[in-house]
């Protein structure tokens, strides 16, 4: 398990959406509505909008940064992203959205094995501290 770490600072609250497999945002999420569209993903059909997205890692495409930034622009982004393994491409999408739209979400690495799907949680992330809890 990687050390907890803030990749992008911020606070986000929402019902947890716990993905059992890695997900590429590009080809995996429809940015116009936030739906998981990867046909081979176990949670296909779930919607990431407003949820605290808990997933093992990003996957695949280098366009996932664009898709996350587009979700933030369109208002379909998750409320926060909690990864088991750092993913600079997802962090980059959140960093660029803050530059462009003044709007971002926290992206953190944390042990979220105890987080149950559907339970409301809050992610508070600052430089040097990560808190994933109720």
């Amino acid at each position, binding site marked *: 398990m990687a050390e907890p770490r803030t*990749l*992008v600072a911020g606070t986000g609250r929402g019902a947890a959406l716990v993905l059992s497999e*890695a997900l*590429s945002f*590009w*080809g*995996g999420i429809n*940015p*116009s509505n936030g739906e998981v*569209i*990867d*046909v*081979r993903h176990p949670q296909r059909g779930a919607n990431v909008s407003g949820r605290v997205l808990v997933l093992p*890692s*990003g*996957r*695949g*495409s*280098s*366009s*996932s*940064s*664009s*898709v996350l*930034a*587009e979700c*933030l*622009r*369109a208002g379909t982004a998750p409320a926060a992203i909690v990864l088991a*393994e*750092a*993913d*600079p*491409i997802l*962090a*980059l*999408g959140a*960093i*660029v*959205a803050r*530059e*462009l*739209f003044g709007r971002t979400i926290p992206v953190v690495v944390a042990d979220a094995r105890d987080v149950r799907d559907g339970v409301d949680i809050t992610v508070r992330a600052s430089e040097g501290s990560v808190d994933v809890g109720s």
Partner: protein
Amino acid sequence: MPVALTEADRSRLNGDHGEAAALATRILVETGAVMGAERLIDIASAHVDGCLYHGLAGLEFAERLVSGGARVSVPTTLNVSSMDLLHPERGRGDPASAENARRQMDLYVAMGCRPTWTCAPYQLPRRPAFGEQVAWAESNAIVFCNSVLGARTNRYGDFIDVCAAIAGRAPLAGLHLDDERRARLLLRLEGVSTRLMASDAPYPVLGHVLGKEAGTAVAAIGGLPADTGEDRLKAIGAAAASSGSVAMFHALGITPEAPTLEAATGGSEVAEIAVTAARLRAARDELATATGDALGAVSVGTPHASLAELERLAGLVAKRRPVVPFYVNTARDILAEAERRDWVGSLGAAGVEIVTDTCTYLTPIVEAGGGPVMTDSGKWAWYAPANLGVEVVFGGLEECVASAAAGRVVRDESLWADG
């Protein structure tokens, strides 16, 4: 740890070189901190994926850069876009998106990037030298650059790719460093027939297994034929960067940083996984979403076909003419070269449609009449069902051509038998 900056980095950050260079450096430094970089390094070239339109965010970013006076400072190639500029009549997307996509392409060219429009920049004449530090985006190009060329790039995403090109700098972390390039895992082919490995079919399938097993890790592959060429290594990498986040692999005895297992691992003990014929058959079937022999169309050339692949396809379809729509993707530069050798004439005579500048899993071009699409690409098989809403079937190039000629899926099951 904050990223240490040079005088020149600080000057760019302060806006001495314009607003765009300041924005680019800010993003490099922030993302560099996420990657754990202690400083930035000079890069020799860049390959930019951000030219592909995914919505207004990417377009607004490019507009912000151009209005801030952005110019790339190193030779920079451009990835595919969402339009075939050479054959625009083939696109069936909505006109507003097409206009935005076109505008985004123009903005990247305005920054001084070369309009190469290819996901396989490593097939162009000038490509990075062994050991060179570069910043490449496009997942399949990243793997090829690290693994086959032995040049060094991280898994860069849209936005930071052009930032690196503007500043001529990249965060020193990950695969830019010797230690991070070592294999942590060994996949060994076992009991797979020589006949199967002599065909194209198993390479993308092996890549699919690699992506699933390695995730983000660097792995070594043992047991590949010694003459495994660039097209087959390309197929492995593209599939591994789709089912996983693979940014580099070693092919023992073949790729430049893996003359031996010890060289690939740096002498460390690594976990070993056997890849058998049964595992390859299962992975092949995972790449398909359709069963049965119905066939609507065939799409090959993902990543973009090389000259050698176009020549081979031209030879195959001359003998067996497709009766369903057949598409091949390639780069405009490769197409120009193939035209000189008259392979384009042979492909056209057989009814093969050549798509350039984009890819048939990005842009609604393929007309399959509701039937499944067969492909020889692990990456196409992985992404097309979600992107295009089509069913897919996987097969090697020869199986694709035989199927297109028969109008139904034709497979040589004996090829996949235990060896």
